[in-house]
Each structure stands twice: as structure tokens, then as C-alpha cells.
């Protein structure tokens, strides 16, 4: 379970998060939507323990990711970064099996490669790509590799940061479907941040809209189109008229 309560985060005088509250039950997929620059990625960084909140509480399966126990929880978390964040200097299979090659989960390299190939095949990549380097793959393939790395160690929680950014609509849908399949198949708790409504409809069990540093609306996917929340209606319609200010 993921719990966020009264989360505040500022950068100098820029107050990005002003009391965010979220709760994601085990096995559920929460998608956080919101306009660019509203702090969606900051929430994710706080959830991962990469950025320390000014105040408030973040708990992943009961453990604070900013505490001394952060490595315990990180070993149970998978993360898909917006740009993939694959290590350029390592071949694909070493990227996927990184945890199995270093640190506490270290195993024999041959065994690690076997697992990496299994995971690559699970996300639709052929075995022959295992020895390539990330720069030799297309954007969509890199996303798949990043996805394979995120699921490599059977995580309990997975975070997805803008999983379809930079992909064509067809490849974006392939990635959305793959994420949904994996979330259901692995039974993980997932948090996705995106501003792509198509991703929301494909991935989410629950949706939250972040604007002005707080959650303006939260509900299950079925309520998305029925809600009268002005922020949500404007966001879904992609309208320039409404409470979400736009620069023209």
C-alpha cells in the first residue's frame, strides 16, 4: 500500500506541493494526471526517496522511502523513467539484470542473463537484442527495455513516469497495454504519472488530478467522464477555457 499525507515540497520560493494526500491500495493502479509543471514528477521523486519532502508523510508498504530503511523498500520497487534512463555503457541484458549483477541480489552472470532474456521476451523483445547497447534501439524498444528492468526483480510496487511520452500513438498503446498486462499479471501496486488521457483509460483503476500543488479530484476510472469537477472536465477536454490557467 502507498500512503501520502500532507506532502509539502518547495524549491526556494516555488511551492510545488502544498499538502498532497493519496492512498493506493495493494494491487491497484493509480494514475496521477495534471498539466505540465504541476509537480507530478516531484511526487514520484518523493515516493522514491530521491527528493526529501519539506513536511508530510510518505509510506510504501509501511516504510518511509527517505528513512534509513530506504534500501529495503527500494529492493521491492520498480521504476520506469520518462526517458528510459538506461545505462548507455552497458548492454541491454546488463541493464535489465542490473540488480542481479550488483549488490545484495547478486547472482551468477549466466543466470542473470537468462532472467534478463526472459524479461525481454515478456515485453516483446527478441533474445537477439540482449547484447545490443541502448543507443542501438528505437525509442519504443528502449521503453520496453526499461519496462523489463522495472519488472526484473518481481517488485511489489512499480512507478511509471510518463510511459508514453515521445512515442507514436500505436507504440504508445502497445506500451499502455503491456503495462496493464504486467500490473495485473504481477499483482503489483502501480502509480503512473501522465498527461495522456489514452494512457489513463488503459492503465488506471483509480485516477487523481493534481493542480496547484494539491489533488483536485480523485476517483475510480468509471467516474472520470461522469464527474462535474471543473478541473477534470477541462483537462479531459483539453480546453483552454476553465480553472486551469493557460498561457497563449
Amino acid at each position, binding site marked *: 500500500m502507498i500512503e501520502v499525507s500532507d506532502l509539502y515540497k518547495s524549491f526556494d520560493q516555488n511551492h510545488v506541493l502544498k499538502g498532497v494526500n493519496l492512498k493506493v491500495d495493494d494491487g491497484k493502479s493509480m494514475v496521477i494526471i495534471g498539466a505540465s509543471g504541476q509537480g507530478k514528477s516531484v511526487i514520484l*521523486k518523493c515516493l*522514491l*526517496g*530521491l527528493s526529501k519532502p519539506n513536511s508530510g508523510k510518505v509510506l510504501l508498504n509501511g516504510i518511509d522511502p527517505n528513512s534509513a530503511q530506504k*534500501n529495503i523498500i*527500494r*529492493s521491492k*520497487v520498480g*521504476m520506469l*523513467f*520518462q*526517458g528510459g*534512463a*538506461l*545505462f*548507455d555503457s552497458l548492454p541491454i541484458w546488463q541493464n535489465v539484470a*542490473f*540488480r542481479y549483477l*550488483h*549488490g*545484495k541480489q547478486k547472482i551468477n552472470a549466466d543466470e542473470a542473463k537468462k532472467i534478463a532474456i526472459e524479461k525481454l521476451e515478456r515485453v516483446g523483445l527478441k533474445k537477439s537484442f540482449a547484447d545490443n547497447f541502448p543507443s542501438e534501439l528505437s525509442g519504443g524498444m528502449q521503453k520496453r527495455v526499461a519496462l523489463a*528492468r522495472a519488472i526484473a526483480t518481481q517488485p511489489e510496487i512499480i512507478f511509471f513516469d510518463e510511459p508514453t511520452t515521445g512515442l507514436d500513438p500505436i507504440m504508445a498503446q502497445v506500451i499502455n497495454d503491456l503495462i496493464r498486462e504486467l500490473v495485473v499479471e504481477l499483482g503489483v501496486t502501480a502509480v503512473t504519472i501522465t498527461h495522456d488521457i489514452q494512457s489513463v483509460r488503459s492503465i488506471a483503476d483509480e485516477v487523481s488530478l493534481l493542480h496547484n500543488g494539491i489533488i483536485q479530484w480523485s476517483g475510480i476510472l468509471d467516474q472520470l467522464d461522469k464527474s462535474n469537477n471543473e478541473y477534470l472536465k477541462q483537462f479531459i477536454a483539453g480546453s483552454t477555457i476553465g480553472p486551469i490557467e493557460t498561457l497563449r
Partner: protein
Amino acid sequence: MIGFIAQTGRLFIRLCSFIGELIVFCFRVFANILTPPFFMRAFFSSLLQIGWLSLPVVGITSFFTGAALALQIYAGGARFNAEEVVPSIVAIGMVRELGPVLGGLMVAARVASSIAAEIGTMKVTEQIDALSTLSTDPIKYLVVPRLVAAFLTVPVLVGVGDSIGILGGYVVGVTRLEFNNSIYIINSVNYLEFWDILSGLIKGAVFGCIIALMGCFFGMRCEKGARGVGQATKSAVVSASVLILAANYFLTEIFFSS
């Protein structure tokens, strides 16, 4: 007037904050050197990148420096009939000063820039965040192997550079300045003391630490975008070069002032 004081104050605070950040970074790095896990593959890769691949640039620089030094000492020595000091001054000058300093500066230009650009790009493309989420400390994985590799390889590069520099002086001495082959070698060796060589190698080890630390520090605090990576690279090379020259003075003061 108030504006000027405010501006000065802001600059001073930024300077203090920068120095504090650097001290904390160095402390974190040195605290991580002796504790596992050790990333041996990253270490050997750094040995290759910093040591082996820097050999050509250090060798060529040293050769021409030794050769030019021989010409200069010969021309200067001729003013008071002391041309015969060329071999010994070239040897002492290379191992005590020019070998370590020029070697250090060449490695700083090649290695500090490459480390800062590589780590800076990793920072900008979230690869460093990815390392953290994969339960791997970026300091242990990226900084420690480079620091240890630079600490070990730069003295070796300095030693090789010293030898090639002396060879450069020898080639010019024998072919252009008409020195006797064996007398040149005997004079080069006879006046050279063990401490001359060792002090140069110690300087090399210190310069190696400076190069790796500056490259990693500026890479790790790189700001977003191509401009951020460029700025990090420039800052790493400039600060490593300046610190090498400053450290060289203080080490010389410590080693030879008495």
C-alpha cells in the same frame, strides 16, 4: 551601495555553500572507499580509461617538453659556460616538476572533462536516479572506482612521462647539441636522487585524486540540458587545473623547502 553589499553578500554565501558542498562530497567519497560493495568491473574500466588511454597524450607532451627543456638549458647554460648541466637539469626538472605538473594538466584536460561530461549526461538523463532506485549508491558505483583508478594510474603516467621527457632531452642532446651518448646518460642518472623521483610520483597521486574528484563533483551537480553538461565539463577542467597548480606549489614547499 546597498545593492553592491547585497551582491557581495550573495556571492560570499554562494561561495561558502559551494565549498561546503565540495567538502561534504569529498567526505562521502572517502567514507565509501573502504566499505563494500566494490565495483571491480567499473574500477578496471576506469583504469583503462584514465591510465592506458592517457599514455599517448602524456608521452608526446613529455617528449617535446624534455626536448625543449634541453635546448633552453643549453642556451642558458652557454652564457656562463655550463652547458654540461643539461642532462642533470633536464632529468631533475622533469621528475620534480614538469613531469607531474604537465602530466597532471594533460590528464586533467582529457579525463576530468570526460568524467564530468559522462556523469553529467547520466544526471541529466536520470541515469543517476535510476542507479539509486536500483539500490546502488551512485557515489560507490561512479565516483569511488574513478577516484581509486586515478590515484593509482596518474603516478604511473607521471613515471612514464618522466622517462619519455628525459628521453626527449637525450635525443636533442645527442643529435642537436653534440653531447656524448654515454656521458649524457651517466650525467642524467648520477645527479638524480630517489626522493626527486618519489616526490614527483606522490604529486602524481595527489593530482590524480584532484582530477577524479573535480570531474565527479561537477558531473554530479550538473544542471539540466546541454548547457549544464558543457558548464560542468568546463568547471571540472578549470578547477582541476587550478587546483593541480596550487597543490603543486604547496607540495613543493612541503617536500623541498628545507
